[in-house]
């Protein structure tokens, strides 16, 4: 479980806080998506959960973050990384740059954790299969396309099997079906593997289909928290620049013209849109 209690955080030399009085509980195994405009504090929240704040970014931190009742500020980062995996927004920042093949790159984290050789090989292979990069195994990690590199970055963290997985826009450079597949693989991890997932994403269609819960951030504060269909259709959040799926926009336009079934909330997914528009 992740527990954030009354956290306010300001980066060193920043004029104002990036997070303001944020409190949040995420139960084990939940798939939680974080949405919001650029600069809303999403990446800061990711760094906070992964312990990069306060271990790497100093700044001013009030409040506390607990992973399974352990306060992250009290646990050294080298122990914390075994529990919390962070996938960066830019895969270039994740790739070590010291390995000559995708296979070795994915093994890199496991070597550092001291995983025995046989298990390491098994984990590298199964993780490559899971994110569908087996055919890239012998390629140089830095000679891949942006989207391929993003999958390698995801695999390098998944292989370490963290209890908590924090992903910062992990599909930003992926092709459309590839994005959906990553969402689906992450969903399976949270359902079957009981991994707790915090995923920052702008792709609201897949957030709505796959996430158990959606948290909306604006100006460093939580402005929405609940089921995708409630948060992503909330009229009051329109001005908070959270965004909407085309299904929600179409349903809203239909409602304005008195053509959306009054008993139905606005749609966020394709299935919900079909339900509302079919008659």
């Amino acid at each position: 479980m992740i527990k954030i209690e009354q956290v306010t955080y300001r980066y060193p030399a920043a004029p104002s806080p990036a997070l303001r009085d944020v409190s949040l509980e995420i139960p084990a195994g939940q798939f939680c998506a974080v949405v919001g405009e650029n600069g809303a504090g999403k990446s800061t929240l990711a760094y906070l959960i992964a312990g990069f704040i306060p271990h790497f970014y100093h700044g001013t931190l009030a409040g506390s973050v607990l992973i399974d009742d352990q306060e992250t500020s009290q646990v050294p980062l080298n122990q914390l990384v075994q529990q919390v995996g962070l996938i960066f927004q830019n895969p270039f920042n994740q790739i070590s740059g010291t390995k000559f093949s995708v296979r070795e790159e994915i093994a890199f984290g496991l070597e550092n954790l001291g995983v025995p050789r046989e298990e390491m090989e098994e984990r590298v292979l199964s993780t490559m299969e899971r994110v569908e990069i087996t055919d890239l195994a012998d390629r140089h990690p830095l000679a891949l396309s942006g989207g391929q590199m993003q999958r390698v970055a995801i695999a390098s963290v998944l292989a370490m099997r963290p209890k908590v997985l924090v992903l910062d826009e992990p599909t930003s450079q992926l092709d459309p079906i590839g994005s959906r597949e990553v969402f689906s693989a992450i969903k399976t991890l949270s359902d079957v593997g009981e991994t707790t997932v915090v995923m920052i994403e702008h792709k609201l269609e897949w957030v709505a289909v796959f996430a158990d819960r959606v948290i909306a951030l604006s100006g460093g504060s939580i402005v929405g928290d609940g089921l995708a269909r409630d948060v992503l259709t909330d009229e009051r959040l329109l001005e908070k620049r959270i965004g909407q799926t085309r299904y929600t926009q179409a349903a809203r336009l239909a409602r304005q013209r008195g053509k959306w079934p009054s008993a139905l909330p606005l749609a966020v997914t394709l299935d919900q849109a079909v339900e509302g528009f079919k008659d």
Partner: protein
Amino acid sequence: MQGVSLAIQPGEAVAIIGQNGAGKTTLVKHFNGLLQPTSGSVWVGDWDTRDKSVAQLARRVGYVFQNPDDQLFQSSVRAEVKFGPKNLGMPGDQIETRSQEALRIVDLAWATDRHPYDLSPGERKRVALAAVLAMDTPAIVLDEPTTGQDHVGVALVGEIVEGLKSQGKTVITITHDIDFCAEHFERVVVMAAGQILLDGESRSVLAQADLLARSFVEPPQLVRLAKRLEMDFVPLDIVEFIEAWLKSSAR
């Protein structure tokens, strides 16, 4: 890339879509001479790219990198945006006007004196865009311009594309955002495994779900919705969808 043939007319707005590693970036890097074909040729107007330097080609084709960190290298946003026009030999007052205008268009006038690396990744991407807009080239290539932008940023990039189109510029954009693609581009080229799989009007290309799937692309949200509703129409934006739906349900 293998056996690719493609002609883009002046003033066309073309989106290039397709799976990761399909060769989209490789293709567009041939447009400004960053890459030269092993065989075959690439012409930009009456120039064969093999006979021209990248610096010469930069007068005709502006290229905004996928990753702004591959492009930005100056110590202020102002210097970054002035660099291109200066290299093209624009007169000083024009450099000033062009660069201010470009920063205004990408909504970064406030960041003129900032260091690019003090900005967020999404903002840096817009600095990279402004740096190329300031060069005022007849053709502009945008490599995944909506990545890292929130929905307001995506809408802004859409407005910029529309602005370039209305100025008669040739706009070529690589994108994975198929809804964005449908709303702003009249022609779509789909690539898979280094080849062109489909090339045509967006309304016909974006409806071919089976072929698109071969390149890991799905039709836009509204096209999928219209299909599920068995509407005999391919809507490219919300208004088109609603109007077609009202018509079909009135029937």
